[in-house]
């Protein structure tokens, strides 16, 4: 098997929508000889870029699934994971970052650092991923890589240092000056496949010298030898500079900035050189696992092929031949025929087929070593599971999973769709922990929830195309609650004594609001007025009453029920009688207890350029929000507000158009609050109407 781990690169390409990431990846695959023709991403010649293996992606021009691909550049093995840039697919990006060692952050030379770049950057920092920045689209009108580099410093807090300069810009982009080698690089041939090295054009010489000084100043911090050489004004060999850049990048204190245009075939090969030179190999990064035998003590994975296998399943795909599981090995080796154990479930599995993935094609292999990314067939597991061999019982730390923020009600149009829909939902929830579903048995609606409207829209589309399941999409349901605001007494007799065996029970007591908690039952019965054996029946009856409130059918919460009086009949009292008496008593007291409807209030934070904040605050205000405050960063502002969930649907579209797509928002559940009178009246009216129909 191989291979020098030092020559392995597991990288991700991460960025904002439309920064040209997929085109870039496609060019990389071309130059590394994996595919034989370059196709435009949007399919002008009828064939889409190889990486976008799904129809949907080709249509929308966006990438949905993360696809892993293997390629090789100048003797280095490079595994590339293409990750989506839209905020709704955060889980894909997070998962990819968990298994990668380094990343390329792609930016548009015109649009620069945009809201999604900020999120992605934050994720990369959270997982301590060293990165190179690639300022793409330098052939576009308005391209300004220098401004973008400055934005990297200002908005993303990166120590961004340009290691290249453009020769010409916009339609005049001809080549790139490599500041490390101090040479001009041109990309000849139809597809830019032939690299020509030349002297730096005279008119750019001064600029190049100046920028090189800046570069050396910045990186000398990471190399004593370089610092000395500079002070002594000695010749500085290329390798010394590269070493310094590598050290800075790996320590996360430096971000080398490169430029180019994937579309115009300029700069891609140099980027690949930089991936080899500056991004980490598996042994450069420390990864830890949890030892399940030792109470989850942290252990460092060794990357040693001799040690027991430790591998993380980070992506699942259900295809024609069964489930395909993508794994990253951190230790040991994995071979066909080996037996591995899922440390979450304890189940054993035998490795059948082992493949190396290329976007849509597979290459069968016999085995793989530490630091590799491969895929297994026929292994049943969930995303995030750890596999071990040779007696080890470790688990890679659990991945950070953001909570879903939006839900939609869906209803299959016919029986066939119903069956297919269940199959589809089953698969989707297994692959994606941020996508959740449950069935509301009363309305027979299925509720799906996820990270955003686009997230859910895509699943609904996929259900239709891949599973032939057509669904009607309803307005999202808000989980209302009911509660009481004052104490109320009740005294209820349940009597059915019309001959033969009857029922009798009387329960007296009061309801009062419960500050903390959902429900509390207090038994203050003295003198046996209600026999001991029926006390729990009363409790049962009250709890049944809490399930559905009288105002709008929503569950009741925050009530303490105390019973202190009652009567029974020697023959006719029973469990049922007291349950019914309690239900009656509850209803009686409830209407007198000032019942109100409550709605979920979300803590919403909208982040975007300061110039749009006025409009943003207005939009939140219009949606019954209370603006709590603003946080001023300088170039951007964060507005924090408390918003009723019921008013948040469709907000991402509103926000996008208000801010030219430059702002984004996060939403998390805060608390339940009483709804305003007008809203309550509408809800009650709707509920009454619903009851009449039923």
């Amino acid at each position, binding site marked *: 098997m191989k291979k020098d781990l030092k020559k392995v690169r597991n990288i991700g390409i991460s960025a904002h929508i439309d920064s040209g990431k997929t085109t870039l990846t496609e060019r990389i695959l071309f130059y590394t000889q994996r595919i034989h023709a370059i196709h435009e991403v949007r399919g002008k010649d009828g064939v889409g870029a190889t990486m976008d293996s799904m129809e949907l992606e080709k249509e929308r021009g966006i990438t949905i699934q993360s696809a892993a691909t293997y390629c090789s550049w100048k003797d280095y093995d490079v595994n590339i994971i293409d990750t989506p840039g839209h905020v709704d697919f955060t889980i894909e990006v997070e998962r990819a970052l968990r298994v990668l060692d380094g990343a390329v952050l792609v930016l548009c030379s015109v649009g620069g650092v945009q809201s999604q770049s900020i999120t992605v950057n934050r994720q990369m920092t959270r997982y301590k991923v060293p990165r190179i920045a690639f300022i793409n689209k330098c052939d576009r009108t308005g391209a300004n890589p220098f401004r973008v580099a400055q934005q990297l410093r200002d908005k993303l807090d990166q120590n961004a240092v340009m290691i290249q300069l453009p020769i010409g810009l916009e339609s005049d982009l001809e080549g790139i000056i490599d500041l490390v080698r101090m040479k001009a690089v041109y990309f000849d041939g139809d597809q830019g496949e032939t690299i020509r090295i030349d002297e730096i054009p005279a008119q750019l010489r001064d600029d190049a010298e100046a920028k090189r000084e800046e570069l050396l100043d910045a990186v000398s911090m990471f190399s004593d030898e370089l610092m000395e050489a500079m002070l002594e004004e000695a010749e500085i060999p290329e390798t010394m500079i590269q070493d310094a850049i590598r050290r800075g990048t790996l320590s996360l204190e430096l971000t080398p900035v490169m430029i180019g245009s994937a579309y115009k075939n300029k700069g891609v090969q140099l980027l690949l050189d930089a991936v080899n030179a500056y991004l980490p190999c598996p042994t450069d990064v420390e990864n830890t696992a949890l030892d399940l035998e030792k109470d989850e003590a942290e252990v460092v994975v060794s990357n040693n092929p001799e040690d027991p296998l430790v591998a993380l399943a980070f992506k699942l795909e259900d295809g024609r031949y069964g489930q395909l599981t993508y794994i990253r090995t951190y230790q040991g080796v994995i071979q066909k025929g080996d037996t591995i154990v899922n440390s979450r479930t304890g189940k054993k599995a035998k490795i059948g087929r082992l493949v190396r993935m290329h976007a849509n094609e597979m290459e069968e292999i016999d085995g793989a070593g530490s630091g590799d990314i491969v895929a297994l067939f026929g292994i049943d597991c969930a995303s995030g599971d750890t596999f071990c061999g040779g007696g080890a019982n470790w688990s890679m730390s659990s991945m950070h999973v953001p909570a879903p923020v939006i839900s939609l009600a869906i209803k299959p149009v016919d029986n066939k769709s119903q069956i297919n829909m269940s199959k589809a939902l089953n698969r989707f929830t297994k692959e994606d922990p941020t996508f959740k579903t449950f069935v509301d048995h009363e309305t027979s609606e299925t509720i799906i929830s996820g990270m955003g409207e686009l997230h859910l829209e895509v699943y609904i589309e996929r259900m239709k195309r891949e599973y032939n399941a057509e669904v009607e999409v309803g307005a999202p349901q808000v989980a209302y609650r009911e509660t009481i605001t004052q104490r109320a007494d009740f005294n209820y007799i349940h009597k059915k004594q019309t001959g033969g065996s009857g029922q009798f029970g009387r329960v007296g007591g009061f309801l009062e609001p419960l500050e903390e908690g959902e429900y509390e039952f207090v038994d203050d019965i003295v003198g046996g007025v209600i026999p001991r054996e029926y006390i729990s029946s009363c409790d049962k009856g009250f709890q049944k009453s809490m399930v559905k409130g009288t105002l709008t059918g929503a569950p009741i919460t925050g009530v303490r029920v105390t019973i202190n009086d009652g009567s029974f009949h020697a023959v006719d009292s029973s469990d049922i009688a007291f349950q019914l008496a309690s239900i009656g008593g509850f209803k009686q007291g409830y209407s007198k207890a000032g019942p109100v409807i409550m709605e979920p209030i979300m803590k919403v934070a909208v982040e975007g350029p300061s110039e749009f904040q006025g409009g943003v605050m*207005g939009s939140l205000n219009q949606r019954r929000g209370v603006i709590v405050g603003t*946080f*001023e960063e300088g170039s951007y502002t964060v507005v924090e507000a408390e918003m009723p969930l019921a008013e948040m649907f469709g907000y991402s579209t509103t926000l996008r158009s208000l801010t030219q797509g430059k702002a984004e928002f996060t939403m998390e559940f805060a608390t339940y609050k009483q709804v305003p009178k007008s809203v309550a009246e509408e809800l009650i009216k709707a509920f009454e109407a619903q009851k009449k129909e039923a």
Partner: protein
Amino acid sequence: MGYEPLVQQNPLRVLNIGKENNQMGLVMARAGLGKTALLVQIALDAILRGKRVIHVSIGESIEKTKTWYGDILQLILQEHSVTRPHELIDMVARHRMIMTFKVAAFTRSRLEERLNDLVLQDIFRPNCLIVDGFDFDATDREALEDIKNLTESMNMQAWFSAICHRDDTRVSPTGVPAPCHEIDDLFDTIILLKPERDATIQLDIIRNYGAQVEGGKGLRLDPTTMMVKEM
């Protein structure tokens, strides 16, 4: 609205805050002596009188500032019986907006921009501005006059906090310590917080409404709660 008793019992009433709209106030003390606590109580007093407050916190987070208000409000609720505490808490939330700035990001123009955003969008018309954490060491007279002009044009009262340093003993002729010793004339009310032997913190009111005040008025901060008390 039912909060008059709270207003009338508030020890701060002796300062007559809020009687005149255009007023610049200053609270000075060494670090940790209760400037933020006092400003929040001044703000709450204004809110109970029906005013709307913008609380600018420089170098602090929205969450932290919110917690200040929450804690002090709880203490007020404990001391005075209020029939519907949730309503009061809600009312306060609707009358107060927090703006936080990173130190380098606070300038008059940014402040004006943010304030205008609110007013133009008809979201919030503030009567009172609190600025906690303004760096008086790094500022000049002009910058402060600028802000004063802004607040006067918007008909807002403004209250600032300033940190004194133990080793800077410069003092203005009227008794205002550095770093505000050269700009004290811009303020109508100046309160110094001084630690006393009995571990309470005295509110030394150097000036109120432009008039020099002799001897203070016996207001203290209870160090365990940081609440203003009459002695």
